[in-house]
C-alpha cells in the first residue's frame, strides 16, 4: 500500500470520526478459539489517551466523509468546505490488522458519511467486517455504525460480524432534529435500532437451544446524543435516554457536548465553550440510573428540569430528600447505602462485606475510601459523634461546597479568568 496516500486519508478520516465519543471495547465475548488474531473477551482496554483525556481504544475512522446529507451539527455535512477522502475496503482491513498486531488498538470502529444511498454505504461497512472475520481470522472488537435507512437484510448481516452496532440519535428532541437536520426523520434512526434489538433477542433465544448458533452483536447497541446544540433541557435528554435504555435494550447512551464547528445561526457559534461540565453531570445521572437504582423521575422532573452544575446529582437528590437521612451504615440495605452522597458502588460492597465482621466506625469508613467530606452529614455509624445540627438543605450545601474543592471551580466561578 502506498504510504503517503494512506497517511493523508487517515488524517482526514480520523479527524472526521473523532466527534463520535463511543470508545468502549468491552462487553463482547468473542474468544480466540482458532489460534487466530485477537480476543474480545472480558474488559476493554484503553491503549492510550489523547491530550483531551479521552480514551483511544479502537481505530475510529470514517470509510468516507463524502455525504449526501446536510445536517447542521455535522462536520462532514454536504455544504461544508472540507477535504474529502475515501478508504478502500482492503486499506481499512490492512490498517486494522497492523495496528492490532502492535497492540495499539482493541479493534475497529467504522462509521461513514452516506454516499449514494444508505444501503450502498452499509454494504461497504459490512464488507470490511466480513473480510476481517473470514479472511484475516480476526477476533478483535468491531463496532459498526448502523446507517439510518439501511435494509433489514444488511443489518442482519452486520450483526453477524460486528460486536457492537450503533446508530446516533444526535438530537434529543424531535423539534431540534427538524430544525438542524431537515433531511432526517427520527423513525430512520429508530428503525435499524429496533431491527437489531429483535435480532439480538432472537439469536439469544436460539442459542439457548442450539449452541452453535452464531453470535449476533454480542456487545449490544449504543447511541449518542449531542448536548447543547438545540437548547434542550437535561430532563428532555435523560428522559429520552431512559426511554432508549428501556425500549431498545441499549448498552450505552453517550452524551457529547457540542463542539462548535460552523457559523450557522441555528447553533452555538465557533469559539463558545464546550459544555463539558454539563456533559459530566449527565453521565453521572446516567450512572445513577443504570447502577444505583435511581429512577430518572427522582433526579429530573417538571419541578426540577436542569441538573445542578455545582454539585453532583446524587448530592442534589439527597439535599431534596433530607427526610431519608441519616442512614446507619451498619444496618441499612445495599440500595439505601448506594444513595448516600460520597459512597460509590465499590464502597457499598466493601461496607457490606466488612460489617459482617465488626461494627464500622468513622476510622473504618475513612480507610475504606469513602468521600467523608460529603458522606459524614448523611450517615451514622458505631460512634457517638455525628452531625446533630438540624441543617437545612441550603445550609448543608454551602457547608459542603466550602469544604470541598472541585476540579470545576474555575468553570463555575463568575469571575473572568484573565490568564488562561
Amino acid at each position, binding site marked *: 500500500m502506498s504510504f503517503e496516500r494512506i497517511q493523508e486519508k487517515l488524517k482526514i478520516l480520523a479527524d472526521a470520526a473523532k466527534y463520535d465519543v463511543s470508545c468502549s471495547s468491552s462487553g463482547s465475548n468473542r474468544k*480466540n478459539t482458532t489460534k*487466530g488474531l*485477537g480476543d474480545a473477551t472480558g474488559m476493554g482496554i*484503553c*491503549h*492510550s489517551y489523547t491530550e483531551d483525556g479521552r480514551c483511544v481504544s479502537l481505530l475510529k475512522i470514517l470509510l468516507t466523509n463524502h455525504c449526501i446529507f446536510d445536517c447542521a451539527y455535522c462536520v462532514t455535512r454536504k455544504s461544508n468546505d472540507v477535504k474529502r477522502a475515501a478508504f478502500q475496503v482492503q486499506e481499512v482491513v490492512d490498517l486494522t490488522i497492523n495496528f492490532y498486531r502492535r*497492540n*495499539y488498538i482493541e479493534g475497529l470502529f467504522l462509521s461513514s458519511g452516506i454516499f449514494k444511498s444508505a444501503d450502498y454505504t452499509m454494504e461497504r461497512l459490512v464488507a470490511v467486517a466480513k473480510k476481517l472475520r473470514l479472511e484475516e481470522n480476526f477476533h478483535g472488537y468491531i463496532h459498526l455504525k448502523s446507517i439510518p435507512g439501511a435494509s433489514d437484510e444488511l443489518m442482519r448481516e452486520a450483526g453477524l460480524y460486528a460486536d457492537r452496532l450503533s446508530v446516533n440519535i444526535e438530537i434529543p428532541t424531535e423539534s431540534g432534529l427538524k430544525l438542524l437536520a431537515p433531511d432526517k426523520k427520527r423513525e430512520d434512526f429508530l428503525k435499524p435500532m429496533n431491527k437489531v434489538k429483535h435480532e439480538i433477542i432472537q439469536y439469544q433465544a436460539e442459542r439457548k437451544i442450539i449452541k452453535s448458533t452464531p453470535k449476533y452483536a454480542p456487545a449490544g447497541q449504543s447511541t449518542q446524543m449531542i448536548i447543547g446544540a438545540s437548547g434542550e433541557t437535561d430532563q428532555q435528554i435523560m428522559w429520552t435516554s431512559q426511554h432508549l435504555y428501556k425500549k431498545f435494550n441499549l448498552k450505552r447512551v453517550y452524551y457529547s457536548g457540542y463542539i462548535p464547528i460552523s457559523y450557522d445561526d441555528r447553533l452555538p457559534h465557533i469559539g463558545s465553550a464546550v459544555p463539558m461540565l454539563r456533559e459530566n453531570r449527565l453521565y453521572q445521572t446516567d450512572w445513577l440510573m443504570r447502577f444505583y437504582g435511581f429512577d430518572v423521575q427522582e433526579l429530573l422532573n417538571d419541578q426540577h428540569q436542569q441538573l445542578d452544575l455545582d454539585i453532583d446529582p446524587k448530592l442534589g437528590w439527597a439535599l431534596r430528600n433530607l427526610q431519608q437521612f441519616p442512614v446507619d451504615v451498619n444496618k441499612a440495605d445495599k440500595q439505601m447505602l448506594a444513595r448516600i452522597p460520597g459512597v460509590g458502588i465499590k464502597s457499598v460492597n466493601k461496607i457490606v462485606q466488612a460489617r459482617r465482621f*465488626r461494627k464500622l466506625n468513622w476510622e473504618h469508613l475513612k480507610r475504606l475510601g469513602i468521600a467523608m467530606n460529603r458522606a459524614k452529614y448523611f450517615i451514622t455509624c458505631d460512634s457517638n459523634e455525628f452531625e446533630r445540627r438540624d441543617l437545612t438543605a441550603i445550609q448543608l450545601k454551602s457547608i459542603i461546597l466550602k469544604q470541598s474543592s472541585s476540579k470545576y471551580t474555575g468553570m463555575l466561578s463568575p469571575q473572568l479568568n484573565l490568564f488562561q
Partner: protein
Amino acid sequence: MKESVTLLYDGTLEGFLTCVFQVYEQKLIDVSIKETSKAHAQFFGTNETIVTDFKQSKRVWNGLKSKTSSTGRIRMLYAFLSEMDGMEDVLLRYIQYVFKNPEPVDSDFSHLDVLKVSQIAKSVGREKHRMEAFVRFRLTKDGLYFASIEPDFNVLPLIQKHFKNRYADQKWLIYDLKRSYGIYYDLETVEVIQMELPKGFDPTKTCEDFFSEEELEFQTLWHDYFQSTNIESRKNMKLHVRHVPKRYWKYLSEKN
C-alpha cells in the same frame, strides 16, 4: 524469650510459602521474612536461610485454599508480586489471621492487613492492566513482535495469558528491562527467557538494523492517528497525564 529471627528466601512464591510453613513448624513469634538479596546483617536477632521446599509450600497453599476465596488468593499473589519492602510480613500476618479464624476472613476490610493486601493488590492489578495497554510491539527483521517494558511491579507472570490468547498467530517477546527477563511466545507455548541485548541497542529507538522496514511507517501512521483523533477545544492535559503517566511515555510511539 526467643530472639527475633529473619527468614531469608529466594524471591519465589514457593520460597515465601516455605518460610510461612517454617514459622508454624518452629513456632516462631518474633519473625520477619525477607528476600535474600534484600537482607543485611542483623544487630539484634539472626538470619536463617530457608531452602524452598515444594512439599511444604504446597501444604500452606492447600491450607489457604480451604480457608479463602479465589479472589482472596489472587489478591495475595498480586500483593506478593508487588515486591514491596515488608510485604512478606504483611502477608504473613494476613495468613496467620486467616488460619486463626474458623470463618473465611479474606473480605474483612476492617482488618488492617486484609485491607493493606487488597490495596496493594489493586495497585498491582492496575499496573498489570496498564501493561496490557501500553505494550507496543515492534516488528523485527526476523518477524518477531518485540516490546520492552519497565513496570513498577513484577507483572510479566500476570500478563502472559492475556497476550497468549490474543496474539496466537504471531511470535512475540515482551522483555522487562528492569528485572532482566522476558516472556517469549513461539506460536506454541510461552517461555521465560533471559537474554543479552545487542551492544548499542537503545530500546526506546526503532533502529533500522534491527527492525523491519514497514515498522517505522506504521509507527508514523499511529502517531498521526493519535494527533488527528484529539479534539483541541477539549484539551485537558491534567487528565491526559493522569491516564498516561509520564514514566511510560518513552515506550509509547504516539508520544514521541
